[in-house]
């Protein structure tokens, strides 16, 4: 079966700098993935609902100001809704000390500025079949 990864690219919190999320969304599309793209400022609840309805494999959060600080809240909300098998990756400006906090909260990976687009797409492409296999094994 040909696996087409389905990825939500979004921004939570207050910041509106969306160049990064748009470039990443377009790249993932060109890499053959199905991308749900949202504008910035999504509520955590809206992201959880969207992820469930669209049954995405991965949620990519772009954070260029300080919105990564509420990612732990998103992780808790996903767990509460039974979406713990959705991988969350964060891209953008995340100081080192905060990265540790995010990983501890269950974030799969943090991509920093300068990460290649191909790094992001190959990471997702490798991860998704494993995620799906786990889901079916459950």
């Amino acid at each position, binding site marked *: 079966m040909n696996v087409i990864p*389905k990825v939500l690219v979004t921004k939570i919190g207050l910041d509106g700098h969306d160049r990064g999320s748009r470039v990443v969304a377009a790249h993932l599309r060109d890499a053959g993935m199905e991308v749900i793209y949202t504008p910035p400022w999504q*509520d955590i609840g809206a992201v959880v609902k969207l992820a469930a309805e*669209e049954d995405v494999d991965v949620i990519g959060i772009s954070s260029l100001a300080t919105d990564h600080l509420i990612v732990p809240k998103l992780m808790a909300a996903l767990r509460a809704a039974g979406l713990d098998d959705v991988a969350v990756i964060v891209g953008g400006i995340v100081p080192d000390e905060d990265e540790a906090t995010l990983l501890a909260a269950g974030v799969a990976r943090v991509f920093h500025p300068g990460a290649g687009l191909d790094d992001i797409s190959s990471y997702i492409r490798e991860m998704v079949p494993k995620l799906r296999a786990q889901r079916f094994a459950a």
Partner: protein
Amino acid sequence: MNSGDGNARRASALARILDRDRRAIGHAISAVENDGPGAAGLSAAVTPHAGAAHVLGITGPPGAGKSTLINALLGELIRRGKSIAVVAVDPSSPLTGGAVLGDRVRMGEHGTHPDVFIRSVSSRGHLGGLSRTTSRIVDILDAAGFDVVIVETVGAGQSEVEITAIADTRVVVCPPGLGDDVQAIKAGIFEIADVFVVNKGDLPAAEATVRDLKDMLRLRRRGAQEVPVIKTTATLADGVAAVVDAVSAHGASAGYGRRLRAPRPSINGGADGTEAAKRVLRLGAREPFGLAMGLACVEGGPGRAVVMATVGPQHLNFNGTCHGGMLFTLADTAFGLASNSHGMIAAGIGAHIAYHVAARAGDVLTATAVEVSRSRKLAVYRVEVHRADATLIASFTGTVYVTTVANEPQDVKEH
């Protein structure tokens, strides 16, 4: 779920779907979409529970404001206490299979309402417009107990035919000042509309468009059931209540569950369709000119052909955009293949093209030719050239003279 038993798991999944569990519905749609393990069994299990939802098909040319209208409809239906599911079909790139499913976002703020469920579906290269599996996705949402299921389709190609099979009530959205879009509407969508909506009614051309549509309806559908034409400004929700009223009235008289009664649409139109599809691909593969220009025929059917090309530096004009001759070649090739799909030599006798948007180097273009009319001697084809993001680049109309001479030697077909 630790049970390895497929039946038990299915029963549990079904129970959760009937309970309108978002996560379970989301998983079930993916299973159907990916034709994954258990998809067929799941489909069979939900069908007996389907039939109570009113299925609305919403279609129309790109840019008509379908998503904005759906947002306004969601607001109005929520106000009336309805629960609504939306299936939004977005085009995918035929080359990479990738897609940005953006319609959900254009549908605006109601996506977060607890009584609304939105699912984006990629057309996955199925250029007819509707995802092959949409009908089965609708079954799941119907079984989950949504009062209304809205199916939004890419407004191009053959979607009009497919939506007929799925939707109980078909709404066609027109932008004001139709212009070339009149052609699009005349050519197919026009016949299937149960309700017309002229969107962006605040623009001056809207009134004229309403008048044109009513005139055309009088001419074409003399004696048939009255088809309402409603003007809306979907951003301000004006006229939207009237649309909901008209749609509900139609649904009440026509009944729900049309798709469950009709035979499921076949993908390629049966044995004849398969033969025509193969013929188009064979003809496309042996045309020196098209091949030299870098064209590829990717799909065919009776009276239908899809040809693709990527705009390269050799296709550019002195202004750095795609040469008109290239666009014509692309459209003309699709036209030639579609008109020859029936097995007889069809000779072009005239064609006209309109260029709408400049194409640039790197753009992936798709020309889709469909048969508009066919008589003993003459046949007319409409070709639309789209960019991968569904922007209409050019539209083309061509006429052929149909001969009785086979266009392939007998032995070719045997292979």
